[in-house]
């Protein structure tokens, strides 16, 4: 008699457990998506800033014309409707490297430092870069939490049933690990 009564209770516990784990995983997926979209928002802010930045400096930075053209081209390609997510990621990494070169190159143009317009844009750029870095850290934290859900028992069973797949963590690109080649920049500026 006792065993017959306990069966529905066990079933109820199992169903409740499944619902809790399922909803927990859905929340983790949503958080990863939210983090991913916050990166996109920051990238958009950065793309919006580049034309203004280029316009503000091009009359001073004659020797950096190719760098400015690269930045403009990267932006155009990233915002092109044909660009895939992977293309955009590549443009993003290349843009980060180009902007770091740009920041170093600016040091050769003291007249830029006297321009309020440029200082304002540089402040915006610094802010966006730091926000972008924060958004990537949020994304990595969200993905790590999501992976914990995928790989720990018993939520791994529910995740398997839901067909959830691991997401890629944002890693610092090799190009960004390399120090900026200041010497080459200075040679070019001569």
């Amino acid at each position, binding site marked *: 008699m006792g065993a017959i009564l306990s069966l529905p209770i066990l079933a109820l516990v199992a169903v409740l457990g499944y619902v809790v784990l399922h909803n927990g995983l859905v929340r983790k997926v949503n958080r990863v998506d939210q*983090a991913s979209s916050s990166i996109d928002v920051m990238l958009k802010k950065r793309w919006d800033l580049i034309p203004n930045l280029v316009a503000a400096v091009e009359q001073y930075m004659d020797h950096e014309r190719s760098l400015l053209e690269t930045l403009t081209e990267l932006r155009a390609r990233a915002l092109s409707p044909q660009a895939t997510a992977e293309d955009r990621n590549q443009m993003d990494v290349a843009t980060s490297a180009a902007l770091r070169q740009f920041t170093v190159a600016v040091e050769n143009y003291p007249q830029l430092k006297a321009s309020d317009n440029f*200082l304002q844009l540089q402040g915006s750029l610094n*802010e966006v870069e*730091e926000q972008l*870095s*924060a*958004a990537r*850290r*949020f994304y990595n*934290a969200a993905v790590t939490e999501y992976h914990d859900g995928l790989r720990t028992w018993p939520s791994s069973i529910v995740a398997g049933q839901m067909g959830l797949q691991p997401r890629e963590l944002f890693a610092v690109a090799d190009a960004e690990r390399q120090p900026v080649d200041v010497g080459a920049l200075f040679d070019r500026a001569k």
Partner: protein
Amino acid sequence: MATSQPASLPPDGDATLTATTSPLPSLEHSLQEIDGLRRAARERGWRLLAALGIAWLMGILAVAVSGIASVGMMLVVGAFGSLSVYFIGIHGPAEAYKQAFKSQVIGRLVAARYEDASFSAGGGIGQAEFESSRLYQQGIDRYNTEDLIEARLGATGFRMAEIHAEYKTTTTDSKGRTTTHWHTIFKGRFLVARFSKRFQGTTLVLSEAWRLFGMSGLEKVSLEDPAFEKLFAVYATDQVEARYLLSPSLMERLVASRQKLDAKVQAAFMDDHVILAIPDAYNRFEPPSFWSSSPLLSEDDVQTYAADIALAAELIGELNLERRIWERG
């Protein structure tokens, strides 16, 4: 203690300015004047004690001769009366000595250390502002604040004041007598400084690692630095903004500051400002007791006061608040 709440910080200055590093001001003239006040207070103290001693002798003699009152009652009334007379009599000279010390020693040391500096012994950071930081959740029953420094270090305007916030509990024994106990919520220094980044939301860096009910309207933020996570719990309105404010280097700096101060430092980021709560068992910026027979202040004493004043500069420097990614207009 006053509970005035200054409306705003000193204006941000030119970011290229560096902190004032002027040497300690010559305090000799002020010290002589303050020493005169100290001697006056001490003299008043001795006179009061002498007068009270004579009164006690006469009272005891009167009781012994007449035998009209109970000795126990006389002792209670006499002790209460003596303490009242002493504190009323000593208050004026002691307060004059304390105020002169604060304005002429602490005030001048503050002016020598910071730009656009002012010191107000009776000023402070108001209870509403303390509570709005959300760093301490317990309801406050008694609140004192004093020794407000308002100044600028390089580009960073700040305010720092001492705060003692308490709550009370009452217990009733079997005979129906109630006893009130006071418990400290926070005692120490509160530093409010303009932060180097612009932001909209609220981020709290708390020392208590675990909270049963979380924080209303705020999400728990898990950060990457294990040393930081061991010491602090972060709650914020926005996950990205919390990470924008708490860069890896700022997390390291907060850990280092907490270890250096050996205190459960907490921080709140709101309204473009950072608020730091630094618990401290001591009441800073107070003069030596007027009963002391030694000369008023040694060079070491002055250095100690100067170091207490420099705490704001140290924290602003250690947390790199002077770095500006934006030049504020």
